[in-house]
């Protein structure tokens, strides 16, 4: 990153190559929007480049990148909420109905791949319905695998708050996936 700050374009390209997949995945999971993920990931790197001289040496680059990405994703979520242009509860229920049918048909020889994709779509949509502040903590922890301490740095909140947000997010997610979980987990 020190080389990036000194106008080394090759170093910047290396930073982009190294972190683009993680950031794109983070943004895509936060927004549940594959198309928007590339644009936002690009925006993250442009901001890093523009503010490269403000990077504090000694701090972790990935933490800085995740912080910018999480903030941009949160802004985008809020913008979508304002526009009421995001995944509605009705649409989620529709996905659940479809997925339930797919899972029910699985004994009749339906393609397992299709079933898995459907399940992934349901889980992704369920994550997208978790309130934003819990969702970011959940995705950073359970998808990106960040440590609690690093999540605290990314979000700028105490470690205890991170834990409580993640616990809350998991409980909400489990409740949203309950219809599928009841089928999966035999009594």
């Amino acid at each position, binding site marked *: 990153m020190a080389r990036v700050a000194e106008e080394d374009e090759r170093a910047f390209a290396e930073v982009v190559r190294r972190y683009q997949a993680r950031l794109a995945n983070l943004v895509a999971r936060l927004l549940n929007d594959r198309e928007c993920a590339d644009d936002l990931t690009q925006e993250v790197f442009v901001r890093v480049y523009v503010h490269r001289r403000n990077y504090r040496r000694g701090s972790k680059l990935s933490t800085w990148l995740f912080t910018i990405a999480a903030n941009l994703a949160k802004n985008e979520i809020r913008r979508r909420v304002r526009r009421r242009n995001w995944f509605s509860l009705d649409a989620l229920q529709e996905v659940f109905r479809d997925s339930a049918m797919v899972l029910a048909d699985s004994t009749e020889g339906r393609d397992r791949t299709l079933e898995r994709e459907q399940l*992934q779509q349901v889980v992704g949509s369920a994550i997208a319905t978790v309130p934003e502040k819990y969702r970011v903590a959940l995705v950073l922890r359970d998808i990106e695998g960040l440590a609690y301490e690093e999540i605290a740095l990314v979000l700028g909140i105490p470690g205890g708050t991170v834990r409580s947000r993640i616990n809350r997010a998991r409980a909400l997610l489990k409740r949203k996936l309950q219809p599928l979980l009841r089928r999966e*987990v035999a009594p």
Partner: protein
Amino acid sequence: MKCAQARRMFGAYWDDDSTQAEREWLESHFVGCAACRKEYEEYSRALEWVAALPRVEPAPDLVERTLSRARRAVPVADHMPAPGVQWVPVTAAAALLVVMATLISPWLGLGPGPRVASRSPERNAPEQLAPATPAPSTLAGGAPVPVPVAGAKSGSEPLASVPDSLFDHNEDVEFILDPVTLRRGRASLTRAPAGPRGERAVITF
């Protein structure tokens, strides 16, 4: 009670962040409580689904597009202030403002407190003031003396020559028009010169 306590420990147990004693307690609880065991199975299954979500791959040309946009972007200069130092100039500016307001407010007539006139180097020079006549008066030697006219503005003149309307004539300030000589705060009556009573006053600070 035990079940509620057990369910609160699911997160730490899943993250392998619980103590050995907590793990053993929870596992022994699972043996005897089918409901909690099922609850934890659902909990862990949901998190397995989340963890198993496929990674979203970025577009193949993302690096080139990002570099292209970054080349057009204008870098921002390093303006990160040192943390914890910002309060110094703010506090200093606030203190300066308070001091200036305190010094200036008596001259602006803002405060209800007593008026304080600053002393000029010519404070010991006796001065004659015309009592009420708008026409300019003269000193004994014939030099013109400014007439205290209400509403007159102070300019760059010495304080001695500034009309005393500069000192706000509120009701709490009383000017004695009888011939009085004030010397270092001690008032003493002087003999009035010829003419109507109160025509002239000699005030020395």
